[in-house]
């Protein structure tokens, strides 16, 4: 018998993260979505200024030559004059007069964004940056508040638990979107103006704080139940026995158990937050123009397919509704699938 045991070579022990990575690798769809998200983060992060350098114009630069005399914005793959001034502004001409000699050309990948003729693709990149900033920032705020309060409630129990649970109920019953619209549309000073030295765009921080402050209840509930179930396990009692302080037990023994499910939930939260940002900005209470965000890009021409301009139906440009819609859809879809894959990969109970 001893010989058999010696011949059998034990596989190397794997940590939980390595196990999760192995499970995630097997889930092709989720992995693909993860790669897409990485590409997206690169595109809206360092990619946007790089592209801006490449084409040589910014997201807020108007190009009147990319808009027809009838005010119809140009479609995708347009090469237009690189100038912000029209040679003649006569509304009766069929075609703009060419600009003076020596004017260069510039390239608009997805065409012009409106009758102002700004670069739609660049605006989608920068808008995606703003939307993702709001969504990720709010998810981080929600996770921080949720983990802190939830683990506190689960660890201490008793009166603290009761108070935190009541507060959780209160936040849960809050009509968040109504509240966001109520606040956002009238507040144009103070917190709205905070940009932290230009790191964030105007209004981003306000949205982060408000969305985060009203979506922490679910992470808190997850953290609370997890901590409650781990509170009296052997490893926690062993740590208590050797005299570890509460803060140390929470940090080094309990937190590693909380992180995987909450990280997965955080990914799903980012997806929800993108939808919230889009909706709130659409309703005129989020990010203010001229800063682009996916919400404002969608709002700008939303409904023009449905009710074309009665004076000039030819101005309708379906691209402008399609592009931000597809961008939002792909991102949220990838986040949902990836978050779900992450949840299954980090949950040891799931058998696939």
């Amino acid at each position: 018998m001893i010989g058999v045991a010696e011949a059998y070579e034990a596989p190397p022990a794997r940590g939980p993260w390595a196990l999760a990575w192995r499970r995630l690798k097997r889930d092709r769809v989720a992995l693909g979505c993860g790669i897409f998200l990485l590409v997206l983060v690169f595109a809206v992060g360092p990619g946007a200024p790089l592209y801006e350098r490449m084409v040589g114009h910014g997201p807020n630069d108007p190009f009147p030559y990319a808009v027809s005399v009838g005010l119809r914005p140009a479609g995708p793959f347009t090469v237009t004059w690189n100038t912000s001034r029209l040679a003649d502004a006569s509304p009766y001409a069929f075609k703009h007069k060419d600009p003076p000699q020596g004017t260069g050309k510039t390239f608009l990948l997805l065409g012009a964004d409106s009758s102002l003729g700004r670069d739609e693709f660049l605006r989608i990149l920068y808008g995606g940056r703003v939307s993702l900033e709001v969504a990720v920032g709010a998810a981080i705020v929600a996770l921080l508040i949720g983990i802190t309060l939830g683990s506190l409630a689960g660890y201490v129990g008793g009166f603290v638990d009761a108070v935190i649970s009541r507060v959780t109920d209160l936040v849960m019953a809050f009509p968040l979107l109504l509240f966001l619209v109520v606040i956002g549309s009238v507040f144009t000073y103070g917190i709205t103006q905070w940009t932290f030295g230009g790191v964030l765009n105007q209004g981003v921080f306000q949205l982060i704080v408000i969305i985060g402050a009203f979506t922490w209840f679910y992470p808190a509930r997850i953290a609370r139940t997890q901590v409650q179930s781990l509170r009296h396990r052997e490893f926690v009692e062993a740590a208590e026995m050797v005299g570890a302080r509460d803060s140390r037990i929470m940090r080094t023994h309990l937190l590693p158990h909380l992180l995987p499910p909450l990280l997965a939930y955080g990914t799903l939260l980012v997806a929800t937050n993108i939808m919230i940002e889009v909706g709130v900005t659409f309703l005129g209470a989020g990010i203010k123009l001229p800063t682009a965000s996916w919400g404002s890009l969608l709002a700008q021409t939303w409904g023009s397919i449905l009710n074309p301009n009665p004076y000039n139906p030819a101005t309708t440009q379906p691209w402008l509704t399609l592009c931000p819609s597809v961008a939002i859809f792909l991102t949220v879809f990838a986040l949902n699938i990836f978050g779900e894959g992450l949840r299954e990969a980090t949950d040891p109970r799931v058998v696939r």
Partner: protein
Amino acid sequence: MFVYALRRIGIAVVLLWILVTITFVLYLKVPQDPAGFLVDLQHASPQQIAHAHHVLGTDRPAIVQYGKYLDRVVHGDFGVSWATITFFGGQATGAAVGPMVWQAALVTASLLFGGLILLLLIAIPLGVLAATRPRSFTDRLSLALGVAAISTHPLVVGLLLQLFVGNRWKLLPASGYCTVSSPSAQQVQAAKTSFSPPPCGGVGQWAWHLVLPWVTFALFFVALYLRIVRARMLEVLDEPYVRTARAKGASEFRVVRGHALRNAIAPVVTMLAMDAGMAIGIAMYVETVFALPGLGRTLIRAEEGLQGYDLPVILAVTLVSGAAIILFNLVADLVVMALDPTLTRSSRRRLLRLAGRTA
């Protein structure tokens, strides 16, 4: 049970109070002068502006305004919409907020309840179907479609439905709302004399106009509920009592419907209650898309006014929607109790114990 409900109602009242207080305090800080509703701020004399403030009641200290407002709300008076105030014969009159918000709440309620029913009609059968055939094509397809539906913004879903079903194919009305009650002869006559389109009404027209909003609303939530029904059904179908039922020779339909589904449905109700706040937000998008005069539209209009914000309307909408969410949570708790046999028994026992203690 009774004590429990009483405690919940107590918490609900506190919650509503907090909601109103926060909204009130926020609007004290808004840098817009509500007197703009009554007078032209750029040309009015200081006396006129002061008089406008007096009419609105904003000339008093904030704490007095707040106290007066609470007092009126407790007595069921939500005040007068600032945007509608006119000086008629020297007397300031305006539309009462109460009936206005009540009308809007009815619209939102018909959207939410129809959407809820449609949601359950889609999510529960699909979830059960997916759970009885795990990892099959049906299972995967329904989950994938669900994720696609939740990843599309309701604004976009609504626009697509309007564009194709409403405008191109002309199967259903693309926007607008019809009241449940039929229009009175007076209204019909008034529309005729003013050359406006005839007023629509009646249950059929009402439902006909709400089909697309209902679908938009339900599609957003289907994935979540489909998934939870499926997960719970998979768990429940492994339980010993389901095996017992099968062993006793119950038909598959009877096992799924009678034994498994009843136990799988309780978390769905709890989740519905948790999503109530979210649902009111989604309803706001749907109302915007389909031009339904509901709570969300009312709120947005109260803020979009050029002169400023219509505080009585905003407060009333916040109050009504908060109250609706709380009420829905309460009802959901009671339904969960009714569905769960073990919980009912224990709460009955607790009730008996309480009765013994008080007697």
